[in-house]
């Protein structure tokens, strides 16, 4: 039998806020939040420091709500580039303890330390050591869920380590009965509000209920509720509840070729005319194609999505179509995207637009077209503009429509994930 693994999930406490506090020692004892720009509808709390959380400030609420709870709040604009760099520095610290490190999000990473324990002693000791080092080098507090596999490590971190004084918690499989299984289903990984309601309606109110239901019975129950395609989800939930997970900690997991390349953006105001939407559509197509060109892909299928502005009456569409030939030329993809938009847009104001390209093939050979005689020319032009952007930044050269009021390219080029770099 193979030796039991020791997997940790390390989570950074209030990551963005902690990074800002480390950068601004003067705010150390003040309530601090990182929040987006209210003018551009990204004005929500991205992260709140523990002091701010004591005032009742929570992540994802509106800035105004937080200010009414805590008028002395220090508000900092996000600096996404800095957070990414800090996250990578933390990865490097983890990598000095084990080579098996898998970033799961910007502030959570899996570590498989099975092979390092003979150097450091028991897992808790090692976790303390890593914790101290991260604290000393970056000023960030980390919490560790420790277990024999990834799902238990994640569960241990979310439900116990984050609430512990020490920030450490070891969850063993034989203690599940008294620990995890007593928690309500809503606390389970991958179970959100909707699923909680569904499980409650099925009479499954604790995680233990799911784990103790025989898999076949759970499958039958879910099939009755969600139709015949729910076997896999049933098995997934059952495994999560039972703490069964053989997935390896995979450092190279991000190295795979993508199957789709897409960009999406929430608009600063609702766009109501076709002309307005077409401008952002072109800008998004340009970004998507630029990324495809840099990777040497051509996409065959374009998909366009729009979300209506009215939350109470959801509208919008997400449709795709196959182009005649694979391509990564902006104008060709744009033409197809506009066709989709014209065909499916219902005329209601739009708050979110997205474009993606999929079914890739390599761009070292392409189908000659009888009708498109400018292809070589467009390729040469785009190669040049891409090179300029690469060297001087995305805002260095852009299409004329981007300086019209509906253009967003200029603003977007200064952002990562919708927030300032």
């Amino acid at each position, binding site marked *: 039998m193979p030796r039991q693994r020791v997997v940790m999930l390390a989570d950074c406490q209030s990551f963005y806020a902690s990074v800002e506090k480390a950068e601004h020692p003067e705010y150390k004892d003040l309530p601090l939040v990182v929040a987006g720009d209210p003018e551009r509808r990204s004005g929500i709390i991205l992260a709140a420091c523990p002091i701010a959380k004591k005032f009742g400030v929570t992540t994802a609420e509106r800035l105004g709500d937080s200010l009414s709870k805590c008028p002395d709040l220090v508000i900092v604009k996000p600096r*996404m580039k800095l957070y990414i760099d800090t996250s*990578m520095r933390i990865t490097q610290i983890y990598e000095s303890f084990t080579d098996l490190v898998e*970033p799961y*999000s*910007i502030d959570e990473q899996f570590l498989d330390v099975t092979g390092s324990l003979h150097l450091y002693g028991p897992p808790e000791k090692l976790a303390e050591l890593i914790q101290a080092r991260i604290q000393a080098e970056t000023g960030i507090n980390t919490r560790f869920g420790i277990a024999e596999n990834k*799902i238990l490590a994640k569960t241990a971190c979310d439900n116990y380590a984050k609430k512990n004084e020490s920030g450490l918690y070891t969850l063993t499989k034989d203690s599940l009965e008294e620990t995890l299984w007593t928690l309500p289903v809503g606390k389970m990984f991958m179970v959100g509000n909707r699923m909680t309601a569904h499980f409650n309606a099925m009479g499954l109110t604790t995680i233990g209920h799911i784990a103790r239901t025989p898999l076949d019975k759970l499958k039958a129950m879910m099939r009755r509720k969600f139709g015949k395609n729910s076997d*896999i989800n049933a098995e997934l939930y059952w495994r999560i509840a039972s703490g069964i997970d053989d*997935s390896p900690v995979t450092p190279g997991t991000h190295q795979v070729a993508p199957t789709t390349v897409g960009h999406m953006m929430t608009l600063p105001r609702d766009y109501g005319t076709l002309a307005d939407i077409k401008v952002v559509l072109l800008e998004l197509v340009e970004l998507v194609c630029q990324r495809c060109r840099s990777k040497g892909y051509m996409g065959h299928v374009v998909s366009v999505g729009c979300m209506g502005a009215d939350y109470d009456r959801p509208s919008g569409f997400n449709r795709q179509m196959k182009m005649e030939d694979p391509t990564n030329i902006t104008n060709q993809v744009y033409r197809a995207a506009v066709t989709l938009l014209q065909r499916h847009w219902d005329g209601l104001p739009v708050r979110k637009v997205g474009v993606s390209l999929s079914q890739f093939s390599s761009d070292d050979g392409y189908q000659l077209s009888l009708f498109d005689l400018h292809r070589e020319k467009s390729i040469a032009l785009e190669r040049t503009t891409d090179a300029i952007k690469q060297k001087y930044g995305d805002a260095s050269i852009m299409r004329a429509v981007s300086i019209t009021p509906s253009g967003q390219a200029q603003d977007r080029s200064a952002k990562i*994930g919708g927030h300032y770099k």
Partner: protein
Amino acid sequence: MRKKLEGNGLWESSRMMLPEHKAAIIDNNEALKRRARTVLDEQEWEAVSRSVAESLQLRLPITLRMFHPLEELTIIGIVDRVDSMRGRFMIDGEWFEVKNIEGVTTSD
């Protein structure tokens, strides 16, 4: 769908990664693979030049370890020509730069 239950599927389907973060990780891994040039000392250079000369004059096959930024590169063959003016030599009809040599083993 089935993928969620296999390999690393559960985590790959649920993670939240910024594309910029992902790109930075990939770039970083590439950079780690990049190797630095080995500097040869005089004795090593002497061994290299002797072997190259021997191979050229006696038609003996040699194995040269060459510098490559990303890969492990060795060339095996008989030296056909040496162009000392331009600092290059030819093995099997292909030119290589002398300055990229990192080591030599002769097969007797």
